[in-house]
């Protein structure tokens, strides 16, 4: 494999990882830090993308689209937290699973009713739509570089807030012992609503940013959500650092698997076997990774620390 290709594939791995992190970031906040199992996280991601697409269509401005998506999704998120999730904090995780699963079903139908079953378009700003020359012979989509940048920024921001600010400490405290946290003078109810809104906003960023690369359609959240969960669990629930590392691991491993494995099998096994086993193994690689990690580190790579 020529060097430029190697470099490009490395970038692709990194980029896929950060794509996943964009979604995992919000999930780390809500699921990791606040300790709520929110299956509807992918739904917020979908809503973000749809809002962005709609506004972009209307205004023609990508920036406006992102802004609108962020605000809109955050509001929707907080509304959900107030109406549906708040009553469930005192109950077991199972209730959150059921409630948020219901939200997925409802949201998907509503989106279909409002926007129709056909996927809708969300295009990247013309300025970024082309590739840029990173090194001689290495052209890389400008837009994906933006994704990389935003992903890293989100990681940094989240890390600082969660680990180094009082609000972050209150969140973690409230997650482990709500009652005691409020006895210490923290208004946990509103803190959590706000944090959930922030999580939703991060979803919107992911949705709006990935929209131009991925189909904006009903159910777009579900599959990528699973990957986001995988990322977080590999990294260690509640750890921002872990989530980032997990995301990069998954991104790179998946890329390597998809490119190298089939070739490898073709070299080793009969084409029959190869064409079958190669893709199969490539598809399950990240799950093998997760199972492996949990087998030896049952609480992820970075057991809960900021």
């Amino acid at each position: 494999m020529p060097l430029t290709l190697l470099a490009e594939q490395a970038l692709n791995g990194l980029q896929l990882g950060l794509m996943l992190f964009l979604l995992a970031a919000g999930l780390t906040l809500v699921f990791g830090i606040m300790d709520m199992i929110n299956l509807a996280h992918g739904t917020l991601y979908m809503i973000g993308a749809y809002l962005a697409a709609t506004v972009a269509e209307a205004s023609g401005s990508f920036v406006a689209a992102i802004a609108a998506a962020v605000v809109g999704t955050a509001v929707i998120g907080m509304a959900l937290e107030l109406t549906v999730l708040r009553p469930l904090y005192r109950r077991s995780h199972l209730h959150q699973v059921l409630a948020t699963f219901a939200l997925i079903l409802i949201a998907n139908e509503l989106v279909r009713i409002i926007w129709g079953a056909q996927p809708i378009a969300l295009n990247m700003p013309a300025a970024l739509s082309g590739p840029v020359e990173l090194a001689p012979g290495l052209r890389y989509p400008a837009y994906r570089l933006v994704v990389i940048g935003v992903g890293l920024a989100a990681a940094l921001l989240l890390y600082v807030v969660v680990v180094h600010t009082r609000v972050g400490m209150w969140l973690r405290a409230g997650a482990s012992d709500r009652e005691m946290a409020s006895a210490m003078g923290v208004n946990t109810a509103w803190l959590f609503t706000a944090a959930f809104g922030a999580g939703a906003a991060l979803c919107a960023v992911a949705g709006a940013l990935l929209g131009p690369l991925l189909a904006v359609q009903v159910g777009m959240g579900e599959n990528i959500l699973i990957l986001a969960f995988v990322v977080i669990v590999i990294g260690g629930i509640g750890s921002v650092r872990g989530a980032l590392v997990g995301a990069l691991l998954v991104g790179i491993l998946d890329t390597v698997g998809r490119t190298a494995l089939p070739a490898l099998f073709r070299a080793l096994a009969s084409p029959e076997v190869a064409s079958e086993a190669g893709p199969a193994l490539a598809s399950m690689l990240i799950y093998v990774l997760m199972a492996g990690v949990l087998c030896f580190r049952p609480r992820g790579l970075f057991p809960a620390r900021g």
Partner: protein
Amino acid sequence: ADKIKVGFMSTLSGPGAALGVDIRDGFELVAKGEGGKLGGLTADISIADDQQSPDTGRQVVERFTKRDRVDVITGMVFSNVLLPVMPAILASGTVYISPNTGPEDYAAEKCDPNFFVVSWQNEDTASAMGQVMNDRSLKNVYLIAPNYPGGRETLNGFKRTYKGAIAGEVYTRLGQLDYAAEIATLRAARPDAVFFFLPGGMGTNFIKQYVSAGAQQDARLYTPGYSADEDTIKSVGEPMVGILNTAQWAHDLDNPANRKFVADFQKAYGRLPTMYAQQGYDAAQLIAAAVRDTGGRIEDKAAFRQALHAARFDSPRGRFRFNTNNYPIQDYYLREVVKDGAGRITNKTIGKVYTDYADPFAARCKMK
């Protein structure tokens, strides 16, 4: 009979829903046009969602055959739903009319008098594209499809006619999101052209990413019509321009039936019809025609099947008839996605690939 009961089961939820919805809209358009009748008989159409799951599909089929006791079933989009439930349908002696997938099995040995396909055999459009590549003397083509039977079928169809060399053949994960890695490898292989078959969201993702990587200049994209139809165009937008695809129909075909269909469809639903819509439309037309020809005496199954096989109706696609295996014999066209005068991005017919094309499996079908 005083009315005809139609069980319409399609994928109306989940990522595949767009296709099912188009088929349904096309189908209902005919009944609407006749004021709720098909071929003069009141049409009692019960619509159900298979959620793209054979399990659910099986459940619905049980309801259609055992409870509603429908005369005709139609609507399924995906072969992974159709193949598992088909035995149950045929066992119940109910007629099935496929408005989309046309699997190999039922085209060959397992062909059945109760099984009709108004769309195409799964390999047809791909074979047509192989022909196109030969005509354009493209010598080095790169192939991409998802790792599932449908994907392999399509690539086989392509290879059946394509004569040149194959730069690479990649099978990706079903429902894959990111194709950056595949695209990079692909470009390193320096092919003349890329033939891809990635239905639904996968196609959207691939095209968006392929174009943003600036690869369109190096190797142009070729695909079966259903990966480059109005729905995909709607979801991808600008980047679609320049993609070549083959289909049995195009919305700009110049014949009266088609002009009527496209006009009516746009009037009813405010969007351009897709192949799926046209296929659903013809499924309904086929039923209507058969009802009409039997004078509404559909309880005479044999006669009804006869009438269906005769298929006396004007298809928007132009010339259409059934082969001995109840799969179509029809023409195939080459379409290109262009930005038309009105600045609207859409498919434009730029040539005919096949005339009266029949799938290669009919020979293995015993029916006469």
